[in-house]
């Protein structure tokens, strides 16, 4: 009944969207149906993809260290960009809990394996659902791109993901940087488009007061790439402009210091 109702609603919205004043402006069917929950669903799908990467083990997470069991909602022992909770070892000490013992063993936390290059495609459906649920989940787009590019080594697929992600998130520094990086890959190389994206990152960052951590990384990666290019062309003016932009964001960043050094050397050389 509910499925039929949802299908009918979807059909009506597709046929006559203008006659539905209650529909959110610019929102799709999922937006109406799920509201804010779509962000949580999207995050859950990214989490599921992460679990797939770790061979299906829920990274939220179950541990077995030499016969000592852990089952915590916060800790992880893997080092693939996850936070390591120092309190992990002290968690759930105490009396023997048979239910926990069964759960930990049935869910096989002792398994420590990762998807191979060929198997990594298994993560893609979860990323796909994640970005369908919330097209503005930049983390989902960027992780999908990273998986396609660095784990699956499929640069064409990575580029498709980056292009679509950037199209749907034109305001995101991180997505612009991701697309710039996708255009730098060996088989999909397009230096002009790549630099255009990196320049867009720098422009967007200049208009932003406080950059989030990911945006900050995207900015300095983009500045670094543009600086390399400028250095190859011996374009002192472009390099000085980039140094100026980087100094405004973080004068002590290694990229800023390196650019300053390069600029000095180029100045001496000329």
């Amino acid at each position, binding site marked *: 009944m509910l499925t039929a109702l949802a299908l009918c609603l979807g059909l009506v919205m597709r046929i006559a969207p203008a006659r539905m004043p209650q529909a959110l402006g610019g929102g799709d069917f999922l937006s109406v149906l799920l509201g804010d929950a779509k962000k949580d669903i999207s995050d859950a799908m990214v989490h599921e993809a992460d679990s797939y990467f770790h061979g299906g083990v829920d990274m939220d997470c179950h541990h077995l260290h030499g016969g000592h069991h852990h089952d915590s909602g916060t800790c992880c022992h893997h080092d693939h960009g996850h936070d390591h909770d120092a309190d992990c070892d002290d968690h759930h000490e105490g009396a023997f809990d048979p239910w926990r013992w069964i759960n930990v063993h049935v869910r*096989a936390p002792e*398994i420590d394996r990762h998807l191979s290059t*060929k198997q990594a*495609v298994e993560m*893609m459906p*979860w*990323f796909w659902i994640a970005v369908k649920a919330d097209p503005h989940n930049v983390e989902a787009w960027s992780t999908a791109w990273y998986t396609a590019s660095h784990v*699956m080594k499929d640069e064409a*697929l990575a580029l498709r993901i980056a292009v679509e992600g950037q199209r749907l998130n034109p305001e995101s520094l991180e997505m612009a940087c991701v697309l710039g990086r996708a255009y730098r890959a060996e088989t999909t190389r397009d230096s002009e488009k790549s630099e255009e994206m990196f320049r867009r990152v720098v422009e967007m960052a200049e208009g932003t007061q406080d950059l989030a951590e990911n945006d900050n990384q995207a900015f300095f990666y983009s500045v670094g790439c543009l600086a390399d290019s400028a250095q190859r062309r011996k374009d002192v003016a472009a390099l000085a402009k980039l140094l100026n932009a980087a100094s405004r964001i973080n004068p002590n960043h290694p990229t800023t210091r390196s650019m300053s050094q390069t600029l000095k050397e180029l100045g001496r050389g000329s």
Partner: protein
Amino acid sequence: MRGCMRRIGALVKLSLLELWRRNDMFALLVLSLVLLVPLSMARPFGATGATRYFDEAALLLMWGYSLFISLGIGGRLFTSEFANRTVYPLLAKPVSRGELLVGKYLGAVVASWSALAFFYALWAISSVLRGGECLTFCFFQAVALHALFVALAVAAALAGSFLLTPSASTTLLAILFPAMFFFGRRLPDYAENVSGVLRGLVNVVYWLAPHAEFFDMRQRLVHGWGGVEAGVFLAVVGYAIFYSGTLLLGARLLFNRKRL
């Protein structure tokens, strides 16, 4: 003894026929096709070759269906007999209340198992067609644990039907089992984050509610982890037998006290 077995056998046969005569199974089959066929054709971002998500979705559906069937059959076992007053001819000698309860329970379990076997057979066929390997040790362990879960769910539905009204019992169990299936293992963590009466309540639920998640070997099956250790498997089997036995005993006591 032989007569008792024959009477129980007849009740089992009746339950089996009842399930397959109803349209539930075929409705579930059609629903599966509607959900899974488009899912099997999905090409996320144009990438091909992903199969685990399909297996996971199919297995999750099977868990949902098995719960739906078990609770439906278990809840209906006696309520319809009482409503239609057909329990009186059934209880006429030589069938005792105990035999009737055990016979009907076994019938419901066998009927639910037949549905489960049907769904697992379909899943195995689809897995083989996709080039997968399915008849592994882990597969048989997963089916066995799932079957035990079904037996437990039927026992819970049967006991619940004596304690509450059929709809209330089925609704309560339809909430309890999925809640335990998805969140049961995290209850101690939730208990740590709350205090007072609520913490006590969460702990009571953790220790007493049926741990549906013990029987869930989907992740092992989907990701090819291999089977569980014999000790763990036996512990889960023991849990299911003890829990189902306790529920049946409770149902027997309630049935005996019931005035007909």
